[in-house]
C-alpha cells in the first residue's frame, strides 16, 4: 500500500510537471503579453521598463524555472483582470463546483447502478430495451442542448424551477439533472455489461446451485464484483463531469470554477486560467487515486503493490 502511494505520488508529480511545461509554453506561445497589457500608444521606453519588470528579458529556460518554482509553491501570480491572487479566486469558486459535480455523481450512481442491474437481470425484456435505449440517448445528448431544453420546459413553460443563479435547493435541480444525465446513461450501460459478465461466472452458478435465493445471488455474490468496472467508469468519467460542469455553469449562470475559467479565457487572464487548470488537474489526480484504492477494498485479490 505504501509503495503504491509512493509510486502514485511520483507519477502525479510527473503529470503535474508535464502540465507546467504545457501551460508555460502555451502562455508563451500566445505572443507578447506586454502588448496586451499596455495601452497601444505606450512609448518604447515604457514597454522596455515593463518588460524588465515582468522578467521577460531573461532566457526562456530561466523564465520556465521561475514559473515552475512559483507554481510548486502554489503561487500563480495575480489575476490580470481582478487583481487578486489567482489561486485564491479559484479556490473561492471551488465549493460551488464541487457541490454541483458531487450531487450530479450521486444522482447518476443512485439511479444508474440499480437500473443497470435491473436491465441485466431482465435481459432482452421490454424494460431492458426501453432503459438501454434511453441510456444511449442520455449518453449521446449534447449537454448544452439538454440544459437549454430543460430551461425551456421546466423554467419557461411550466415555471416550476428557476433557470439560473444560486441560493436555494431548487436552483440546483436543473444544473444537477443536466450534468447527471450524461453520466447516468454511461453508468446504466457499464453496469449492465458488468453484471452480465459476472452472472455467467462459475461461482455465481455455484451459489445458485447450492440454493442461495436469486436476490442473494445477485446482490451478495454478483453485484460486489460487478462494481469494479462500475467504479472504474465513475473514475474515468470524473474528467467529463468537471468538463461538463464548465458548460452547465455557463448555461445556468452558476457561479462555479467553470464559469470563472470561461470568463478568464475571454478576458485573456492567463494567471487565472493556469491556476484553474492546475487545481482541476490536482483534483482529478486525487479522485483517480481514490478509485484505485477502492479496487483493493472491493476485491481482495487486487494488489496495489
Amino acid at each position: 500500500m505504501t509503495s503504491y502511494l509512493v509510486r502514485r505520488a511520483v507519477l502525479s508529480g510527473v503529470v503535474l510537471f508535464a502540465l507546467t511545461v504545457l501551460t508555460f509554453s502555451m502562455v508563451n506561445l500566445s505572443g507578447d503579453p506586454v502588448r496586451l497589457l499596455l495601452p497601444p500608444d505606450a512609448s518604447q521606453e515604457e514597454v522596455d521598463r515593463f518588460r524588465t519588470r515582468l522578467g521577460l528579458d531573461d532566457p526562456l529556460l530561466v523564465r520556465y524555472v521561475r514559473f515552475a518554482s512559483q507554481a510548486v509553491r502554489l503561487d500563480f501570480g495575480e489575476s490580470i483582470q481582478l487583481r487578486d491572487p489567482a489561486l485564491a479566486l479559484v479556490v473561492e469558486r471551488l465549493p460551488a463546483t464541487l457541490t454541483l459535480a458531487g450531487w450530479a455523481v450521486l444522482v447518476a450512481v443512485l439511479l444508474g447502478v440499480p437500473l443497470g442491474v435491473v436491465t441485466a437481470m431482465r435481459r432482452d425484456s421490454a424494460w431492458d430495451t426501453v432503459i438501454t435505449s434511453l441510456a444511449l440517448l442520455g449518453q449521446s445528448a449534447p449537454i448544452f442542448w439538454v440544459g437549454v431544453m430543460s430551461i425551456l420546459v421546466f423554467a419557461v413553460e411550466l415555471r416550476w424551477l428557476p433557470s439560473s443563479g444560486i441560493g436555494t435547493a431548487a436552483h440546483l435541480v436543473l444544473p444537477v439533472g443536466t450534468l447527471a444525465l450524461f453520466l447516468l446513461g454511461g453508468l446504466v450501460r457499464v453496469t449492465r455489461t458488468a453484471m452480465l459478465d459476472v452472472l455467467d461466472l462459475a461461482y455465481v452458478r455455484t451459489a445458485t446451485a447450492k440454493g442461495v435465493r436469486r436476490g442473494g445471488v445477485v446482490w451478495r455474490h454478483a453485484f460486489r464484483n460487478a462494481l469494479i468496472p462500475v467504479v472504474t467508469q465513475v473514475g474515468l468519467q470524473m474528467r467529463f463531469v468537471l468538463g461538463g460542469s464548465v458548460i452547465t455553469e455557463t448555461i445556468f449562470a452558476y457561479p462555479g470554477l467553470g464559469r470563472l475559467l470561461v470568463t478568464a479565457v475571454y478576458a485573456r487572464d492567463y494567471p487565472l486560467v493556469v491556476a484553474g487548470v492546475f487545481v482541476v488537474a490536482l483534483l482529478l489526480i486525487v479522485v483517480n487515486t481514490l478509485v484505485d484504492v477502492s479496487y483493493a477494498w472491493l476485491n481482495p485479490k487486487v494488489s496495489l503493490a
Partner: protein
Amino acid sequence: MTGWLLRRWLSRARTRGALLVLVPIVVVAVLAPLLPLDATSQDLRATFTPPGGESASGRTYLLGTDELGRDLTARIVHGTRSSLIVGAAALAIALLVGTTLGLLAGYFGGLMDAVVTGLTETLMTLPFILLAIAVIAAVGASPTVLVLTLGLTGWVSFAKLVRAKTFELRGEEFVLAAQALGVSSFGAMVRHVLPNVAPLLIVDGTLQFGALILAEAGLSFLGLGVPPPTPTLGGILAGGQLYVAVAWWISALPGAVLLAMVVSFNVLGDTLRDALAPGR
C-alpha cells in the same frame, strides 16, 4: 471487411436504423454548397418565423428563422457540414497520432513505452474542455486550432488500443517469422501488426467520431470553436439560448440534429463491435 461480415452487419435492424438517419444527413451536408441554401443573409422582416411559417416578406421557411431573419434550414445544414468536416479532420489526426504512438510503444517497449504511457496518463488526468480552453486562450479560436486541439487530445484511446494489441502480437509466430525473414521493424508493424488492429480501430473510431463532434459543438457553444459568421451547430444553439422563451426552434433543432448524429454513430459503433466480435 469481408463481404459476409458486411452483410451480417447490415442485416441488423439497429444498423439499418442508424444508417437511415445518418446517410441523408451526411449527403445533404456534403452537397450543401450546391444547394440553394443561404446561411448568412439577414431579412429583418422575417425574424423569428416559426418552422413551416410564412414571414412578413412572404417566404416560407421549413425550419423557421433566427433573430436576424436568417434561414435556419440553411444554417443547420451548413453547421452540420462544419461539424462533420472538423470531426473528420480531427479523427484523421487522432487516428494517425494514436496508431503511430501505440505501435511504437507496443513494439519497442522500454523507454518508448514509458514516454507514451506518461503522455496518455497526463492527457487522461485533464478534462478535455479545460485543455482546449487553455490552448484557445493562448492562441485564439480558428478552424485550424480547433481541429488540432481535438485531434491532438483525442488520440489517447487509439494509442491504448493499438499498444495493447501490438504488445500481444509482438511475440506471435507470424510476426517473428516475418522478422526472421528480414522484414524491417517498420515493415513488420505496418504489414503484419496493423491489419490485426484495424477492426478495433474501426469500432473505436466510429464511437470517437461521435464524441469528437460533441466536443466540437461544446466548444462552439462556449464561443471557442469556428468563429462566426460561419454557422456551427453549437454556435446556433448558443445564439438561440437568449430567445428560447420566444423561439424554441433556434436552440432545439440544431441540438436535435446533433443528437441524431451522435446516437447513430454510437449505435453503428456498437453493432460494428458485435459484428466483428461475435459471442458478446
